[in-house]
C-alpha cells in the first residue's frame, strides 16, 4: 500500500516556464515553475489580482498556458486530446469562489453530477450523495433548488460536489469564506482527511487565520511570479 510519505515524491502537477496572458494584455503570471507532489497540501496566497484564479484555472484545465509546459498526472496538457482532457478533469475536484452551481437543479442533483458524468448507477449515486450531504449537514435541504439556498448552504453543496468523486487533486477557491466557524472547521477537517487518503489539495485563501491555524506550505503569488513559503509546523492531530 502506498504511504503518504511515498506519495510526496511523486509529482502530480508540474509547471515549467509557464506564462499566462489574456489577449494582448500584459502577462498575469510569468515564468512560473511549480511542482506539486502527490498527497501534498498547499495554501495559495497573494493579493487580489495576483493571478490565483488564473493559476487555479490552469490546474483544473480550463485554461491553457500562453507559454511554457503544464504536466498533470504525467500528461502534457498542450498535447492532450479533448477526451483525454475530460478524463484528466474527472480526477480533479474544484470548489469555486462563486460556487458555480447549476441553480436550476436541486442540491442532490448538483452533487450527483460528477458521478453521473462517470456513468455510475443511480442506486450507488443516491447512497453516496445522501451520505455526503448528510455529512455537510444538508440532508434536509437536498431536494431544494440551489437558487433557494443560502450562501453557506451553496458553498457546502459546491464542496460536496467537488469531493464526491474522491478526486486526486482538490482545488478550492476561498472554500470557507461564506460559512460559520464550526462548519469551516468541519470542512477543513474534510480536506485534511482527503489529503491523508492521498488527495493533493490546493486552497486559495486570503484568510490569515486559516493559514496560521493549519500552517501548510504556501504558494505565494507576487509580482507575476511565485514563491513557496514552507510550513513552520505540522498540523497537530
Amino acid at each position, binding site marked *: 500500500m502506498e504511504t503518504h510519505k511515498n506519495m510526496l515524491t511523486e509529482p502530480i502537477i508540474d509547471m515549467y516556464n509557464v506564462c499566462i496572458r489574456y489577449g494582448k494584455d500584459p502577462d498575469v503570471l510569468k515564468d512560473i515553475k511549480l511542482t506539486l507532489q502527490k498527497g501534498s497540501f498547499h495554501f495559495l496566497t497573494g493579493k487580489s489580482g495576483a493571478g490565483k484564479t488564473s493559476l487555479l484555472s490552469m490546474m*483544473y*484545465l*480550463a*485554461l*491553457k498556458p500562453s507559454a511554457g509546459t503544464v504536466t498533470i498526472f504525467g500528461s502534457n496538457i498542450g498535447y492532450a486530446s*479533448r*477526451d483525454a482532457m*475530460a*478524463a*484528466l*478533469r*474527472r*480526477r*480533479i475536484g*474544484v470548489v469555486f469562489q462563486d460556487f*458555480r452551481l*447549476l441553480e*436550476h*437543479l436541486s442540491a442532490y*442533483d448538483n452533487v*450527483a*453530477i*460528477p458521478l*453521473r*458524468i*462517470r456513468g455510475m448507477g*443511480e*442506486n450507488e*449515486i*443516491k447512497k453516496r450523495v445522501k451520505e455526503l450531504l448528510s455529512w455537510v449537514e444538508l440532508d434536509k435541504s437536498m431536494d431544494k433548488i440551489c437558487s433557494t439556498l443560502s450562501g453557506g448552504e451553496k458553498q457546502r453543496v459546491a464542496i460536496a*460536489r467537488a469531493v464526491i468523486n474522491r478526486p486526486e487533486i482538490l482545488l478550492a477557491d476561498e472554500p470557507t469564506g461564506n460559512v460559520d466557524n464550526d462548519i469551516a472547521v468541519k470542512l477543513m477537517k474534510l480536506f485534511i482527511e482527503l489529503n491523508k487518503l492521498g488527495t493533493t489539495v490546493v486552497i486559495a485563501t486570503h484568510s490569515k487565520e486559516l493559514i496560521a491555524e493549519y500552517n501548510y506550505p504556501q504558494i505565494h503569488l507576487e509580482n507575476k511570479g511565485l514563491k513557496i513559503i514552507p510550513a513552520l509546523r505540522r498540523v497537530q492531530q
Partner: protein
Amino acid sequence: MKKAFLNRYHSEIPLNKDKSNLFLEVSTAISVFLFSIVLAAYFMMTSMVLSWNKSIIDGLTVQIMPSSETLTADEELLRLNKVISFFDEKEGVEKVRVISNEQIKHIMSPWLGENANIETLPIPKLLDVKLKNGKTFDYQKASTELKEVAPYASIDNHGIWLQKLMKSASALKVLSLFVLVVVLLALSFSLFYAVQTSLKVHQNIIEILHIMGATDNYVAKQYAKRGLWTGFVASIIGTALGFGVLIMISHLSSGLETGLIGSAKLSAWHWGMIALLPPMTAILSMILSFLSVKQTLGKMM
C-alpha cells in the same frame, strides 16, 4: 424506482425551458407537413406514370378510315395490307393483328346495340399493334411516316399525348424530389440554428460540466435526447396535418372517375411511408443535434 428511472434521463442542461424549443417545434412541424404533402404528390405521380406507362407498353391501335369512294374488296384488302406491311417492317413492332368485325361489334355495342350490322356502317378498320418496348417506340415518327405511306390510316394518338404527359410528370417528379431536399435542408438548418442558440444560452452550464470532466459526447447526448423528443412530437403534429389534407384531397377527388387522375391514388404502402415520417424525423433530429453540438464544442477549449 420511479425516481431512479427519471434520473436516468435527467439532463443537467435545462433544454426543456429553451426559448428556441418553440421555434424548433414549429419549424419541424411545418417542414414535416410540407414534406408529407410533397412526398404524397411524388407517390401519386409515380403511380400515374406507372399506370400510363403500362398502357403505352401494351401497344397501340391503328385506325384505317373507310374511303369516301366505293372500293372493291381487293382494293380494301390492298389498303389494309399496305398498313400491315408498314408496321411489320417497322422496328420495335412485335405483332400486327387485324381486329375482327366481331370484336369491333363488341366494342361498339354500348353505342350501337348488340344487333347492329356494322358491315353496312362506315366504321374504320382497326389494327392492334403489339410493341416490343413501348417506352422506346417513337410514336410521333411512326405517325408521320404512316401518313406518307397510307394517309387514310392514323395511329391512335393516346400514346403520343400520354408520352408527352409522362415527360411532364417525370419533370414534376424531379421537381418534387428537389422540393423534398429543400425542405430537408431547411429543417436541418433550423435545427442547427436552434442548437447554436441554445449552446450560447447554456455556455456557462456546459463550461461547468466540462470542468467536472464531461466529454463532448456527454453534452451532445443531452441535445440528442431533446432533438429526438422535439422531432417526434413536432413531426407527429406535421404528419397529422398532412394526413388531414391528403384525406381531404382524396375525398374531393374520389368523384373524378377519369382514367388519368383516377390512377393518382396513394396505396397502403404509400400511406405507410408517410406514417413513418415522425420516427424518421425524430432520428434525423437526434443525429443532427448530436453532430451539431459535437462540431461546435470541438472548437472550444
